[in-house]
């Protein structure tokens, strides 16, 4: 269920910043100013760029005023009357220009009106965006990691069913989330091009799509895998859509709820493989849970203005010191959790050793963020978290305690 599970995107309207978004352009906006027809050029950041990075330009905004000579007279002056004519001509030329600009602006505005007719060709793309397909893919990969780490022989059918079921559940949850958040998404830069905001799909269709993903997804998990995994999936959908999403506007506790949402998919992967909720599953969940905090807290540091205006209750706005403290705390927790892995027989002792460099690095960045509390340190921490998690999971997979080793160990003990 996992919508925001991976939290690579974390919570609904903030997150997923891809590397494509790292490049953005400035646009010049020309506005008419008084009857003097002076041009005011105002550089403005590209709205497609994430507000997180856009913030950089707030301090660099400039307004440059340039004077433009009024339109030249239509007739050469001949006499007094012709002077008056000239004045009239200038005035009418100005009016013509005014109207022409108005008409031009209006025709431009008219072109931006779109018929709300569902285009079947566009439907796959629309549904992909509605279900936050990239985030869903990441969520499915954390569930797969959970499945792969489970100490049982690999079952391909079970693996595929788990992946598909988790993916469908994630699509459903993401769609409902977008359904709830239309006016809020409209007001935040990185979410304002979502399908429901743009009217490309009706709310009814969005809800129907969500239902048609949730039902087969949970059914697949419950009947095709095991009831425990199905229950976890259903619970996660509920947690994300009915707890986390409304809570975003009520209390800062939403971040902790969101972290749980992100932690459940790997647990689901594990329970799908083993059929039970072992310590190993909880450990994996714990790692994902802790990871959410440096990831999200760092990201939210640059979105404070949008959150404040949109009415979102986030630590970065209301309790900035706590925000940084919690991020650092959980960076350090990752070291502790990595050390727990061999103790719980999930990995060999190689894992805490080889993961120490990256864990120490993210903790260092967490400490810098805690101490400096500025945009640059928050960005560094956020971008580090993007590669830290996949790396950590990969290292974990390579250090997985093999079944043969375990059997030998238990034979020796008995």
């Amino acid at each position, binding site marked *: 269920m996992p919508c925001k599970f991976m939290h690579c995107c974390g919570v609904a309207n903030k997150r997923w910043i891809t590397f494509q978004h790292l490049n953005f352009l400035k646009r010049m906006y020309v506005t008419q100013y008084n009857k003097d027809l002076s041009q005011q050029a105002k550089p403005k950041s590209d709205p497609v760029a994430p507000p997180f990075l856009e*913030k950089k330009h*707030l*301090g660099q*905004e*400039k*307004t440059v*005023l340039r004077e433009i000579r009024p339109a030249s007279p239509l007739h050469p002056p001949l006499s007094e009357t012709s002077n008056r004519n000239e004045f*009239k001509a200038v005035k*009418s030329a100005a*009016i*013509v220009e005014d*109207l*022409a600009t*108005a*008409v031009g602006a*209006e*025709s431009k*505005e*008219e072109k*931006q*009106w*779109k*018929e*709300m*007719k569902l285009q079947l060709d566009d439907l796959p793309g629309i549904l992909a965006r509605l279900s936050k397909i990239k985030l869903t893919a990441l969520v499915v990969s954390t569930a797969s990691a959970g499945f792969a780490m489970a100490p049982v022989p690999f079952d391909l059918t079970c693996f595929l069913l788990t992946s598909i079921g988790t993916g469908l559940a994630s699509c459903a949850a993401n769609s409902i989330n977008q*359904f*709830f958040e*239309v*006016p809020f998404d*409209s*007001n935040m830069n990185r979410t*304002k091009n979502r399908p429901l*905001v*743009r*009217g490309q799909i*009706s*709310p*009814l269709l969005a*809800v129907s799509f969500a239902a048609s993903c949730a039902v087969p997804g949970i059914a697949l998990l419950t009947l095709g895998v095991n009831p425990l995994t199905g229950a976890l999936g259903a619970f996660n959908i509920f947690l994300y859509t009915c707890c986390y999403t*409304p809570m975003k*506007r*009520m209390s800062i506790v939403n971040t902790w709820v969101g972290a749980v949402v992100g932690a459940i998919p790997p647990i689901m992967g594990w329970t799908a493989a083993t059929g039970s909720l072992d310590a190993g599953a909880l450990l994996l969940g714990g790692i994902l849970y802790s990871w959410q905090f440096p990831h999200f807290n760092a990201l939210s540091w*640059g979105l*404070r*203005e949008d*959150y*404040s*205006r949109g*009415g*979102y*209750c986030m630590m970065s*706005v*209301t309790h*900035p010191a706590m925000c940084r403290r919690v991020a650092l705390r959980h960076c350090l927790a990752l070291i502790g959790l990595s050390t727990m892995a061999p103790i719980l027989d999930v990995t060999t002792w190689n894992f805490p050793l080889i993961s120490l460099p990256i864990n120490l690095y993210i903790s260092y960045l967490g400490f810098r963020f805690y101490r400096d*509390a*500025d*945009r640059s340190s928050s960005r560094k921490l956020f971008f580090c978290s993007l590669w830290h998690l996949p790396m950590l999971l990969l290292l974990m997979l390579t250090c997985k305690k093999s079944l043969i080793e375990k059997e030998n160990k238990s034979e020796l003990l008995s």
Partner: protein
Amino acid sequence: MAAALRAGLRAGSGTRRCFSGAGGGAGLLAAERGHEPESRGSSFCPPAHSCNDWIGPPDRQSNLRPIVFHIPKNESPLGRRLREFRQETQVWNQQFWASQNVSFRKEKEEFVYSRLKAKGLEMKDETGQKVTLNAEEMADFYKDFLSKNFKKHMCYNREWYKRNFTITFLMGQVAFERAWRRLGWKKTKVGN
């Protein structure tokens, strides 16, 4: 003179143009063509042959996209109820977000001004550039704004969730009703 020019432009335009000054006129025009007129008096009129809703660019103040609703010829009472409720919700949403964003901007300006004054600085520096505070200085304002408007946001959220569910439920009912009707017509066709 100006009026003559305007008329000339209109005649020469060739397409349906409704000037923003004629908001009411555009509204009537839209209504004649089977679409609900824009309450804000914007200039857009959907083409007469269209039987769908039309959605516009984001509003400058509220960032919400206005919708011009299509009034079907054989609109049922349920369909009418849905359309009117959606129109009402749109107006309500527009009012909330426009006032929210405007007051945010205004209060932000006031905050920046007062902070700069306290520092002994002007709003614009020597080159005419607007002086801004950095994110850390603005943090106090963001926190303050959020806590001041908390109750207002709570009320808005509750109301929004209620309306969103109601609209979607009504949409479902209307869709079902239409399907039922179509099924009914098919049956009579087959019967004849």
